[in-house]
């Protein structure tokens, strides 16, 4: 897959970035646009995802909700989440349906947290992907992710998530979920195209009374390569806890930033201080007099 579409922009645990990496180009960025106002919750995308990626999900149990399975798993990389919301302003019960999965952040928390060089990569087209041959299964990506997406397999002990069908995109195809969607709630194209499409959709929704309709492309993570059209863009939380202002946790930033550098520096300074002290002071040796005096005490002569 030596396609230009798969040129690496960034990879995990690699100081200074990749030599000769291309800068991401605007007209080269891909994006998926998920229109929650068009989604009917049929889960064809879930099936298409399982099928294309050759995954099997275990038969689950019905607990009285439509979400099936109940959460993302190492096999379920995309999941339709259903929310029943009582809109008190209009007096109507709204069924909010959101296709959950990796958002392909421009500033990926998983990639930042990953300790294994090259286990998480970001292509110049914006797709963030896991490289399982380098993944060590530590789960740091889970701590880095602001959207709670990666899952560790108990069988392979490696992390899994949506690849944005990078293997399809590399050969000019759209993602399997977008292909399968019967209402075209999932579109795929360049990020610029998807923003244009979203503009039209938002205008349409506003004309139909959804004043707060808008595009979810959160700036806290540098924007995402999976975007949502939301009827209530002022309250993303309504959609099965989609974060209002997602960002990499400051705790993770601290751990992977200042603490790393200050920690290494502190240990280095401690070791260096020892070397310097020994150079200046010389060894702290026991003298012959010490031995004599010590023996006197030991033998009870003093």
């Amino acid at each position, binding site marked *: 897959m030596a396609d230009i579409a798969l040129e690496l922009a960034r990879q995990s645990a690699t*100081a200074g970035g990749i030599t000769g990496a291309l800068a991401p180009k605007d007209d080269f960025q891909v994006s998926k646009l998920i229109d929650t106002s068009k989604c009917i919750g049929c889960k064809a995308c879930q099936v298409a995802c399982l099928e294309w990626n050759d995954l099997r999900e275990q038969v689950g149990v019905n607990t009285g909700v439509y979400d099936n399975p109940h959460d993302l798993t190492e096999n379920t990389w995309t999941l339709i989440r259903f929310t029943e919301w009582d809109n008190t302003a209009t007096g109507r019960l709204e069924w909010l349906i959101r296709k959950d999965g990796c958002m392909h952040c421009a500033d990926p928390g998983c990639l930042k947290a990953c300790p*294994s060089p090259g286990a998480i990569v970001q292509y110049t087209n914006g797709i963030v992907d896991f490289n399982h041959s380098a993944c060590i*299964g530590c*789960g740091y990506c889970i*701590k880095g992710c602001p959207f709670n997406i990666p899952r560790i397999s108990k069988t392979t002990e490696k992390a899994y998530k949506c690849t944005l069908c990078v293997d399809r995109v590399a050969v000019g195809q759209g993602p399997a979920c977008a292909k399968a969607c019967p209402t075209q709630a999932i579109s795929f194209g360049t990020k610029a195209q998807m923003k244009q499409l979203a503009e039209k959709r938002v205008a349409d929704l506003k004309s139909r009374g959804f004043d707060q309709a808008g595009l979810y492309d959160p700036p806290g993570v540098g924007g995402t390569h999976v975007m949502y059209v939301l009827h209530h863009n002022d309250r993303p939380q309504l959609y099965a806890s989609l974060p209002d202002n997602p960002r990499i946790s400051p705790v993770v930033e601290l751990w992977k930033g200042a603490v790393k550098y200050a920690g290494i520096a*502190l240990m280095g300074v401690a070791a260096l201080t020892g070397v310097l002290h*020994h150079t200046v002071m010389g060894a702290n040796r026991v003298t012959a007099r010490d*031995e004599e005096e010590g023996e006197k005490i*030991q033998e009870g002569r003093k």
Partner: protein
Amino acid sequence: MSPSNDTIERHAVSRYTTGARLNHWVTAISLILLALSGMALFTPSLFFLTGLFGGGTLTREIHPWIGVVLFFSFAGLFVRFVRLNLWNADDTRWMRNLGAVMRADEENVAEVGKYNAGQKLVFWGMSLLILVLITSGLAIWDEYFFAYTTIDQKRFAVLAHALAAVGAITIWIVHVYAAIWVRGTVRAMTRGTVTAGWAYRHHRKWLRQKAAEPAQRAPGA
């Protein structure tokens, strides 16, 4: 006993039992392995250290188990030495004279028992940090304990784990340096004894206590 052994024993002061020494070295080896494997996962520039443990995955798997060994091994040391590491007025005085100690001028500093204030700080520092390390370590041992904490708690745990590890490694550097700088110290943990001169120079109060002990075997006995 051979005559040569006899002469050595005449001037040697016993400092650590075989049990204490074994306990110490199990702890020491675990701590070094933990530092190597932990730093490999702490910073990408040291990720190559995973090679020592058979790769990244094995490093990730083995690190927490070594942590469990260290925890119990250190708990053994704690029980052995806690009473001797309680802080007293001598320690405060010793700390005030830290400058003189660092200049190897201990003659004018208060006489020290089995442990000086610096050693006690190493003891308590390690005790506290190992407690933080095992607690935060369990919270991020996802293979077995993923379900017991929230992701946000795991984020704090991984930060606390890194900070505590940096602290513990720094204390370890101080501990090792002190053992090297103060000549004649290492044999306390290898042979179990120190010379009477070493005890006189660095732990005179302890030497006096040892000499006064009725159970002390007479030289050559």
